């Protein structure tokens, strides 16, 4: 059984080379006992030495196989296909000659965290240079062999050509010569003209698709090692509770159980929480023993916390001034008093889970003060860091293999499960795989925080928006640093005073009050934006209708003619108004905005949002039956993510996935907090969007603009919820102010 076992030994040594050079860590074998050679450093004379390896990402061997390293973790966002495409484009290799291998965690690759839709923008330019540098060297190698000037040569289809004579030399034949050349300075490397791109912008299938459709071991949970043991880890249902006692003797005597022990852990919600580990011969033996486990927990103060309690506290707080002022322009009190019309509304949304289908898991093998880890992670650096903290092992004694992840959505940026497997492996001899149950996953997630917005808006007699007041009640943790405790906003639970429409209204007051809680919070696809866009574009829609204005026209007027808006202060967000207006006009045109005559029960809604460097506008078309059943008939998306779509198929898949994901969260997802724990435990109680509820059609338009190329894992999600809710209003007159949708009766007559 192997995971992406490279077939050729030269490639294997290339893969292991840099990790070994850095740490000198050699542990037994990698996935397959027969392949321990994979850990040998290439010796002079090995095939690897005749291969051309201009940098850590490219290896061309004497057979012409081009191996490219994918440095970022693949979680379904398609980066393992798209970033290597950039190198292949500049390198002028045929895509079918390319083998892509997931890189381990290695400083040679630079940052390897996949989050914030940053993988593309932070690597795009550099990856062009990597490929172009290698191409330049291959041309130089041919020039040397033929004794011809480089100007007369060109690279194409994995070979260098001399057109006047018709001579050509394949990269396979050039590899050994190119390997001896010095790497040219950046000034001597010419990047391709985007007009000449042949690969970028085309539809390329995911590189792992053949393995996915035939069931090959690709994911963290698929890792198999000789002598592998299987672990489960029980934590306190009330967050961060401590273990008082457990029936360990009884558990130890159960069939298939090898060991069970208490891990004291820490109070770090993103690290190693206290719990009981059970180690067994198989996953099922571990899970079965877990059902008999009886633990007395010291649950602590968190048990006083509940969603009902948070909600009534938020109501109370809404009547007082906010704890913090995020923006205060003009005079909101006066403007509201002067307004021809004022509208007031309260919006709220619950905590939700990432609920990826592959539960958290990781495999680790501790041996002689070193540890080797296999993990489906978005953030291998964080995994390594937490292991150094917990086990006191130096970074260079940790090998971390990044496996494919069965979904990420931000969950796998947090390394709690890696901390757990490392702590477990420390006490087990041989390799051990920790698998969470889905119940563990739902009850010990790093949740998307809930929140409450209390909004007031004022319109003048011409229907212009003149005042905006928002009191945002959000969630924080009590953090103790250097003996001083303070409230720190939960990850993804913050709001910027710059957030649209903050900078656009002359009388604008945005306040914030944090509620203290002990519930883990973490980034959930398009953090903040995934809810803020819904709140603000729903309320703007309310105001547009109150003003008797077309929701598109109202928004365009609001955006105004300011062109480019710089951010306020250091943390402010620059905003290109023209780019947003461009996508807004485009989506309106493509969706025939305002041109369709819908019967009652059907309608269109519009929304836009800027996040993760992307400008996105959406129009949703919905049908709501008399008994309140919603069907999203069509969603039209217009995006501006810069000058180049890397992989058209992957990009379209991301946008469609974002729309479906946004719709699932909008329609169904909700967790209840009671007694400091999550009430729901599995998909049965936490419904997710199924195929019949997916929109009938999702139309995706990519505008090609002159701006830098940016990422697409997140920005297409936020506008979906408000577009759908605004369409529901157009169809039924019902305004949705609470998520999820199933909390609102949509029936009409």
């Amino acid at each position, binding site marked *: *059984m192997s995971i992406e076992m490279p077939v050729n030994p030269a490639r294997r040594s290339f893969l292991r080379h840099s990790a070994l050079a850095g740490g000198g860590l050699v542990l037994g074998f990698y996935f397959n006992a027969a392949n321990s050679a994979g850990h040998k450093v290439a010796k002079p004379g090995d095939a690897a030495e005749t291969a051309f390896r201009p940098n850590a990402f490219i290896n061309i061997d004497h057979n012409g196989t081009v191996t490219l390293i994918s440095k970022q973790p693949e*979680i*379904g*966002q*398609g980066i393992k296909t798209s970033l290597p495409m950039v190198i292949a484009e500049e390198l002028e290799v045929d895509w079918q000659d390319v083998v892509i291998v997931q890189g381990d965690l290695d400083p040679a690759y630079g940052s390897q965290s996949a989050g914030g839709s940053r993988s593309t923008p932070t690597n795009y330019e550099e990856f062009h240079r990597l490929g172009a540098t290698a191409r330049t060297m291959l041309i130089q190698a041919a020039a040397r062999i033929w004794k011809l000037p480089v100007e007369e040569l060109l690279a194409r289809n994995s070979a260098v050509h001399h057109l006047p004579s018709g001579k050509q030399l394949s990269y396979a034949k050039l590899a050994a010569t190119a390997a001896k050349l010095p790497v040219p300075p950046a000034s001597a490397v010419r990047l391709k003209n985007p007009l000449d791109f042949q690969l970028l912008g085309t539809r390329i*299938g*995911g590189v*792992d*698709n*053949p393995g*996915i*459709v*035939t*069931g*090959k071991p*690709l*994911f963290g*949970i698929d890792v*198999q090692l000789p002598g592998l043991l*299987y672990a489960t880890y029980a934590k306190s249902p009330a967050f961060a509770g401590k273990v008082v006692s457990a029936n360990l003797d009884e558990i130890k005597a159960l*069939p*298939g159980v090898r060991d069970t022990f208490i891990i004291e852990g820490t109070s770090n919600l993103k690290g190693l929480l206290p719990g009981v580990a059970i180690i067994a011969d*198989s*996953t*099922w*033996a571990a899970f*079965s023993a877990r059902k008999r486990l009886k633990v007395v927990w010291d649950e602590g103060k968190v048990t006083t916390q509940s969603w009902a309690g948070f909600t009534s506290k938020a109501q109370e707080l809404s009547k007082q001034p906010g704890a913090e002022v995020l923006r205060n322009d003009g005079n909101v009190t006066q403007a509201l008093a002067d307004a021809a019309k004022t509208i007031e509304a309260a919006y709220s949304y619950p905590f939700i889970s990432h*609920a*990826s*289908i*592959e*539960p958290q898991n990781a495999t680790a093998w501790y041996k002689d003060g070193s540890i080797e880890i296999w993990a489906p992670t978005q953030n291998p650096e964080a995994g390594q860091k937490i292991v150094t903290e917990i086990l006191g092992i130096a970074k260079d004694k940790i090998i971390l293999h990044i496996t*494919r*992840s*069965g*979904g*990420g*959505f931000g969950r796998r940026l947090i390394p709690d499960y890696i901390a757990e497997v490392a702590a477990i492996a420390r006490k087990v001899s041989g390799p051990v795989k920790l*698998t969470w149950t*889905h119940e563990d996953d739902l009850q010990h997630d790093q949740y998307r925080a809930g929140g409450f917005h209390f909004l007031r808006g004022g319109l003048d007699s011409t229907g212009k928006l003149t005042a905006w007041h928002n009191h945002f009640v959000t969630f924080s943790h009590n953090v103790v640093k250097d003996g001083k405790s303070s409230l720190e906003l939960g990850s993804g639970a913050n709001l910027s005073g710059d957030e649209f429409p903050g900078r656009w209204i002359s009388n604008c007051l945005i306040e914030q009050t944090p509620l203290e809680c002990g519930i883990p919070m973490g980034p959930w696809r398009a953090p903040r934006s995934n809810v803020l866009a819904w709140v603000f574009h729903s309320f703007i829609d309310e105001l547009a209708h109150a003003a008797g204005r077309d929701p598109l026209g109202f928004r365009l007027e609001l955006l105004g003619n300011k062109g480019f808006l710089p951010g306020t202060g250091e943390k402010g967000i620059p905003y290109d108004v023209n780019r947003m207006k461009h996508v807004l006009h485009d989506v309106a045109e493509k969706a025939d905005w305002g041109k369709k005559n819908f019967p009652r029960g059907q309608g269109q809604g519009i929304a836009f949002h800027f996040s993760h460097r992307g400008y996105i506008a959406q129009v949703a078309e919905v049908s709501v039956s008399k008994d309140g059943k919603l069907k999203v008939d069509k969603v039209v998306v217009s995006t501006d993510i810069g000058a180049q779509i890397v992989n058209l198929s*992957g990009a379209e*898949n*991301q946008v*469609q*996935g*974002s*729309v*479906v*994901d946004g719709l*699932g969260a909008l329609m169904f997802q909700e967790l209840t907090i009671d007694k400091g724990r999550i009430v729901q435990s*599995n*998909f*049965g109680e936490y419904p*997710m969007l*199924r*195929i*019949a509820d*997916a*929109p009938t*059609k999702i139309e995706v338009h990519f505008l090609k603009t002159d701006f830098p190329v940016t990422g697409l894992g997140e920005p297409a999600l936020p506008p979906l919820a408000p577009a759908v809710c605004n369409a529901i209003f157009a169809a039924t007159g019902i305004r949705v102010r609470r998520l999820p949708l199933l909390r609102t009766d949509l029936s009409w007559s």
Partner: protein
Amino acid sequence: MSKYTIKVNGVSKTVDVSADTPLLWVLRDHLHLVGTKFGCGIGQCGSCTVHIDGVPTRACLTPINDVGIRKVTTIEGLAFKGNHPLQQAWQELDVPQCGYCQAGQIMTAAALLKKSPHPTDQEIDTALAGNLCRCGTYLRIRAGIHRAVELAEQAMV
């Protein structure tokens, strides 16, 4: 613990496990056939779907004890060369995102196509109602099944 001999992808395999061990874990931990995925363990996500005598079945809810002499087919055994029309269509249309649910989607779809070689979108939605895709590839799944129908027809002429 007892010995069970089951027939998986045409091959007889013997394992020594407790009677309540779900087929899912026998496949994954004992036979190292990991294409069949663990998602929820309670029959809600469909990522563990296999065929038992041709019927799509949740391996997480099927104790080894109940399998008996019936034939088990997993994603690894769906087509000898991995070229079932669905497997081809899935690659052609680039259906997967993370890919974790896709073995289950394909196994469920394969059973549907046996029963109904030209399914409508409605039939697809009904047959695949038990298969979650957290990444939201549902539109491409529908398109992939229609494409597989075409590929199967082309292969017949």
